[in-house]
C-alpha cells in the first residue's frame, strides 16, 4: 500500500517484505521463472566448490575433447578440462562482473542524473552534454577503449578496470532515466518544503530525491546486469577480459574453441547457452520488476 508523502519526513513506503515477495511471485509468473534461474546461477557462484565435480582449471590430457556423458556431464575441452565445472565457476565471473558493473554504473548514473535534474540550468546542461558524448559511443567500443587504455588491475581476484569499462556505458543511460524521474518530483511541494527548511542540496538529493527513483533504479540495474554479463562475455571473447585459464563463459567461446567447433561442438554450445540463459533470466526478471513497480501500471 503506497502512502503519498505530505511532509519532508514522509517518503513513499512499501508493505513489509514478506508479502512483497509473495505479491511478486503471485502476480509475475514469468518474473518468477527469471528469478529462479538467477537463484540457480547465484547458487552456482556461491557453491561452486561443492557443485562442480572437477577443478575447472585442471588439465587432463587423457580426456581431451571428450563428448558429454559419463563423468563429464557437458564434455571436456581441448585441455581435458570439465566444461560443466567451468560453467559453474564461470557464473562467479559473470555475476561478480555483471552485478558490480551494473551497481557501479547505475549508482554513479543515478547520482549524476539526480543532480542534473535537481539543479537544472548550466549544471544540467553540462552533465547532459557529457552524457550525450558517452551515449554516442557504441557500448562495446567504449568498453574496449577503456580496457585497452587501462589494462588489467586485480583487486581480490576481480579486474576492477574491466568492471569500470563495463560500467562506463551504463552510466549515461541511468543518468537519463534518473534525470527524468527527478524532474517529475523536483517541483513537488515536499521538495520546496525541504528547501525552505534549510536542508542542504546534498541532503535533499540523497534523502528526498533518490529514494523516489529507487524503483527505476532497481529496474534498470537488473536490466543492466544482463547487458553487463553480455559485455563481459564479449570482451573476454575478444581477449580483452579475463585470461586463461580463468573459467569465464565468453573466454570459453573464444580462441582455439573455434578450431574445434566441428569436432567438439559442446565446447561452444554449453557456454553459449549459459550466457543466453543468464541474459534471458535477468531481462525477464527486470521486465517483471518494472511491471510490478511501475505505479502507472499498478493504478
Amino acid at each position: 500500500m503506497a502512502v503519498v508523502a505530505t511532509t519532508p519526513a514522509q517518503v513513499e513506503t512499501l508493505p513489509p517484505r514478506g508479502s512483497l515477495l509473495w505479491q511478486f511471485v503471485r502476480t509475475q509468473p514469468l518474473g518468477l521463472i527469471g528469478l529462479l534461474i538467477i537463484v540457480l546461477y547465484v547458487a552456482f557462484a556461491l557453491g561452486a566448490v561443492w557443485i562442480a565435480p572437477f577443478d575447472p582449471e585442471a588439465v587432463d590430457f587423457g580426456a581431451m575433447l571428450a563428448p558429454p556423458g559419463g563423468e563429464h556431464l557437458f564434455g571436456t575441452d581441448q585441455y581435458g578440462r570439465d566444461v560443466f565445472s567451468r560453467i559453474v565457476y564461470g557464473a562467479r565471473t559473470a555475476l561478480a562482473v555483471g552485478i558490480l558493473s551494473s551497481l557501479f554504473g547505475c549508482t554513479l548514473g543515478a547520482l549524476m542524473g539526480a543532480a542534473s535534474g535537481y539543479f537544472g540550468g548550466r549544471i544540467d546542461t553540462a552533465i547532459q552534454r557529457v552524457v550525450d558524448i558517452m551515449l554516442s559511443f557504441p557500448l562495446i567500443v567504449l568498453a574496449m577503449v577503456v580496457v585497452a587504455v587501462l589494462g588489467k588491475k586485480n583487486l581480490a581476484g576481480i579486474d576492477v578496470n574491466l568492471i569500470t569499462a563495463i560500467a562506463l556505458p551504463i552510466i549515461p543511460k541511468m543518468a537519463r532515466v534518473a534525470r527524468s524521474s527527478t524532474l517529475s518530483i523536483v517541483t513537488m511541494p515536499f521538495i520546496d518544503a525541504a528547501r525552505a527548511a534549510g536542508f542542504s542540496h546534498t541532503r535533499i538529493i540523497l534523502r528526498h530525491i533518490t529514494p523516489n527513483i529507487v524503483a527505476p533504479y532497481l529496474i534498470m540495474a537488473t536490466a543492466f546486469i544482463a547487458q553487463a554479463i553480455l559485455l563481459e562475455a564479449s570482451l573476454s571473447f575478444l581477449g580483452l577480459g579475463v585470461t586463461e585459464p580463468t573459467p569465464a563463459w565468453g573466454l570459453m567461446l573464444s580462441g582455439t574453441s573455434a578450431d574445434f567447433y566441428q569436432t567438439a561442438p559442446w565446447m561452444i554450445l554449453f557456454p553459449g547457452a549459459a550466457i543466453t540463459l543468464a541474459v534471458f533470466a535477468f531481462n525477464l526478471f527486470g521486465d517483471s520488476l518494472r511491471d510490478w513497480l511501475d505505479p502507472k501500471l499498478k493504478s
Partner: protein
Amino acid sequence: MRSVSTLIGVAALALAAGTAAAETPKRGGTLNFAVVAEPPNYDCHASQTFALLHPVSPMYSYLVKYDSSQDGKIVGDLAKSWTISPDGLTYTFKLHEGVKFHDGSPLTSADVKASFERIANPPEGVVSLRKSTMQDVAAIEAPDAATVVFRLKGVNASMLDNFASPFHCIYSAAKIKEEPKFPERNILGSGAFQFVEYVRGSHLSAKRFDGYFRKDLPYLDGYKAFFVKSNAVVPGMLGGQFDAEFRGRTPSERDQLLKAPGNERWVLHEGPWATVNIVIFNVTKKPFDDPRVRKALSLAIDRWGGNEALSKITFVKATGGFLRPGYAYALPESELVKLPGYFRDIEKSRAEARQLLKEAGQENLSIKLHNRTVGEPYTPLGVFLIDQWKRIGVTVEHSQVETAPYFGNLVEGKFDVALYPVTVPADEVTAQHQSYLTNAKSPISYSRHEDKRLDELWDEQSRTLDPDKRKALVHEFERHLITQNYSLSVNWWQRIIVHHKKVKGWHFSPSHFQGQDLIGVWLDQ
C-alpha cells in the same frame, strides 16, 4: 634402336621443357598474407620477432643470408663473394655494385660497415639484441666502396652464421649517423620491395622496387601483410582475403583447411621447427634467486607426457634440451632422461619438487607468468604450465600482454617468470645458446643470471673447430644449464604451413625466420 632412343630422348626433352615452362615464374600480382602480431617498431637490430621479419624484412638487404631453397645454405645477398683467411681471422666480402637504397642513394661498403658497427657497439639508447654475436669482431674496414673486411680477435666457428642473421638489416650509414634511432620509425632499405604504408591494426604494404640491384627481380608487384589475430587466419584464408600465413598453424587449423570444400587449392608443408619454448626466471627477483625453487618448478613439468598431448592441439611436439632434437649437437634422449626435469617418473619428480619448495620456505608460492597475447602456442602453453605448477601447490597468475610490452618487459627485466620462444634462423649452436648467457654479454638473455661458466663454455665452443671437441663442450653447456634452471626448456615447435597453391617460389624450412625476403616468390595466376 637408335631412332627409338632418339625419339625417347626427344620426348624426354620435350617433357622437361614443358615442365620447366609450367614452372617459369610469372610476373605481377600482390601477395596477401597474414601476420598474427604487429612489430613494436621497424628496427631489425632491436627485434627478435617474426612480427617484424615477415612484413619488414623484404624491404631490406643483407650481407649474406640463409637460402631456404638450398636447405638453409648461406649465400650472398649484397655480398657477391667472400673469402676467409687461412687463420680464420679475416673475412673479406666483395659487394655487388650499383646497389641503391629506396631513396636512390647508393649503398656501399660504408653502409655495411656502419650497420654492423651499430650491431656490435650500439650507440646510447639503441638496442642491439645480437651484439654478443659480434663480440669477436675487432675491426670493420671498408677499403673501397665494394669491399668490407671484418677482422676478428679470435677464431669463431659460427661467424658466417652470425653475419647471416635475418635481423642484420643493412641501414644507410648517413641516416643512422644523423639519428641513431632512425630505423625505429623509418624504413629505408635496399631490398626488392619498398615501403608504401603501415596502418597499425590493419596492414603493411610494399611495392616492387624498380631499382633493385638484381635484374628482373622480384616477380611480385608488391605484398600486403594483414595483421590479424591467430584465430582469424583460417577464416581469412578460406574467404580469400589472404593466401598464406608464414609462421605456422595448429594441427586442427591444418585439418580445417584441408577438409574444407575447395581444399585442392591448398599446399601443405610440415616439419620440425627450430624454435623452443622456454620458461625464464628473473633471478634478480626473489624467490627465483633460490636454485631450489627453480628446480622445483622444473621438476613439476611433465615434459614427455604433456608434449605428446599438446602436439594434438597446438604446434609443439618434441621434448629436448636447448638445441633442437635431431640436431647434431643436441643432447640425445638417453642423456636427457638422467637430468632433473626429464625423469620419466613424473610423480616422483613432483614429490621432490614439493620437498624442495618446503625446504626453501615456499610451500604457498604464488607467481606471475608473463606471456604473450599471440594465441598459439602461448595460450595453450600457459594453461599447461599453470596446471603443472598447480600440482605442486604453486598458484599462478597468467598475465598475457601485447607483443610490444611483452618484449619491452623482458628487455627491462619487468617480469618474474616468463614464457618465451627462442627462435633461430637455422640450427646453429652459437646463435641458439646466446639466449642463455649472462645478460651483460648477451642482451637477449633475460634471466639476468651471473653464471660466467656458461659464458666461458659458449666462448670456448665457438672457437673450437674440431666437431667432437665442440660437441663435448656444447653438451657440458646443456647439462650445466639444465641443472641450474635459469631457463627451462619445455618443448620444441612443429611447423605447419598451409598456403594457396598459386603461391610459388616459397620454400619451407625449419625456421620461420628464413626465406621471408619474398624475392623469388611468384603468383601462378
